[in-house]
């Protein structure tokens, strides 16, 4: 089984966000693999360990993005492809750029995180599926493969769904689906020797324009009390009833 995993390099989720010249600054920010994509890498590795095959990691970014690919290789992926792409490309453009590479891999299964921790858009994998004319299932927390069919369990509004799709397909992974492994020292050494192909992404016009960014004003400090439980409860109930009037 050939599995392609699309990963995005994102800011560390604890990073402080600062604007510089009206844009989000990456000065001094620690970069990581998007945690949802890390889950996808782990899922791919577990499938490979069970069934055999090859795991190819694809990422669109710049030279720094190699670190994210190397980490996936250190976890156990076999090969990386780095697409040099415009960092300002929107979701449409990124999906088109990725499709040129991913579409040529002949993968039986394409795994992605269901969302990126930076822009939170949840668009690129689904758009990629449409471009490649493949079925997709989003936000999957359990995946079983059987005879060319992927059985996906996902949480949806009001319940749990179990959906079958035929392979090849794109499945987007939810954190919690597995426990991503830490790369071993041996894995890190081996990763250095694994191939990372560099390809130039084509120029694709975006469909949306970001007019501006802003940092929300810091929330005014709320009340904070440290009293015994009955008194705390009394003050809270009074606040709910008489100050913010959220209860009758």
């Amino acid at each position: 089984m050939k599995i392609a995993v699309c990963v995005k390099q994102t800011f560390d989720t604890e990073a402080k966000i600062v604007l510089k010249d009206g844009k989000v600054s990456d000065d001094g920010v620690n970069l990581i693999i998007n945690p949802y994509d890390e889950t996808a890498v782990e899922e791919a590795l577990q499938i490979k360990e069970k069934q055999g095959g090859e795991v190819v990691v694809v990422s669109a970014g710049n030279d720094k993005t190699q670190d994210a690919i190397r980490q996936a290789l250190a976890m156990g992926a076999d090969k990386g492809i780095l697409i040099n792409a415009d960092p300002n490309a929107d979701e449409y453009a990124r999906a088109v750029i990725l499709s040129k590479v991913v579409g040529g891999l002949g993968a039986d299964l394409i795994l992605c995180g269901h969302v990126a921790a930076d822009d939170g858009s949840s668009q690129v994998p689904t758009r990629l599926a449409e471009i490649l004319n493949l079925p997709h299932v989003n936000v999957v927390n359990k995946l079983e493969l059987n005879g060319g069919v992927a059985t996906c369990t996902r949480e949806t509004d009001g319940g749990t769904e179990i959906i079958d799709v035929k392979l090849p397909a794109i499945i987007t992974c939810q954190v919690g689906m597995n426990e991503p492994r830490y790369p071993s020292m041996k894995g890190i050494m081996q990763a250095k020797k694994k191939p990372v192909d560099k390809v130039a992404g084509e120029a694709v016009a975006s469909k949306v324009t970001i007019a501006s960014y802003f940092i929300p004003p810091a929330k005014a400090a709320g009340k904070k009390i440290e009293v015994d439980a009955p008194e705390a409860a009394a003050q809270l109930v009074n606040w709910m009833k008489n100050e913010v009037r959220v209860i009758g």
Partner: protein
Amino acid sequence: MAKGTWVVIDQRDGKIRKVSLELICKAREFGDEVAAVVMGSGIEGLAAEIGKYGADKVYVVDDAKFAQYNTGAYAAQLAAMAKKYEPATILFGHSAMGKDLAPRTAQKLEAGLVTDCTAVEFDGGKLTFTRPIYAGKAFAKVNVDTAPVMATIRANIYDLTEAPKSPEVIKADVAVSDADMYQNVKEFIATVSSRPELTEANYVVSGGRGAKGPEGFVMLGELADIFGAAVGASRAAVDSGWIDNQYQVGQTGKVVNPILYVAAGISGAIQHVAGMSSSKNIVAINKDPEAAIFNVSDFGIVGDMHAVIPEVIKLLKK
């Protein structure tokens, strides 16, 4: 010439999600025709309910192919209709369905899409969407440069205001091929709960590591039932197995936006805060005075939830 706003209705078993109706109310402000698109099976009755909120038109697609939400059929149908009728704008709730359907449809239409919006401004004939990035640590204002303009919008942002109309009902032709039915939805296991659904609830009571076990959630459930609240949880509580995955609030779970959010024994990790920080009033109860949750709370109690919550229940039951 593209005109009018479409709101794609999210419904299951004939029950419309509130966010869909909220968006119809909002779209009335744009001063152009407002149409709803409702897909399903055995759903003729829904047009009247949609009309209550001021839709001018309702496109009804009623066929067995739409009995269960499946991306392929819904996206193919919606894209075919958008090509035929050319709406200027297509809005979706940022629900599980909207999140899944909007990007697939947008790609079919080669259209721009802005997801998870927390505000929409209509100015000079142009829509500007505001959306959180970096888990709400920053926001972006975004314009869509295509026709149609497409966006998904969070629940509980806009009020429901009735403006009854008798909408024109248009039965749309089914435009779905067998190849579009690529998702076989084998099973839907509905959550059985007497409580409101998390993403639509006006009140949410959530517990975290401080709940210490399933019993903690029994207590939080008791408080929730006094408010008519939904119960939520942090990832720590879900990972500990004290409560099911579907109750998880945060970036790895559901985004909630209630009038009142009670965070009990929740530390306030950024991924949790991303899912609840837009709540109108936030109460935090935590033993650790330094817990990050106090940075976003309006009313904080430094104390043990196991001591405080029973006292709150006692007072509210009086």
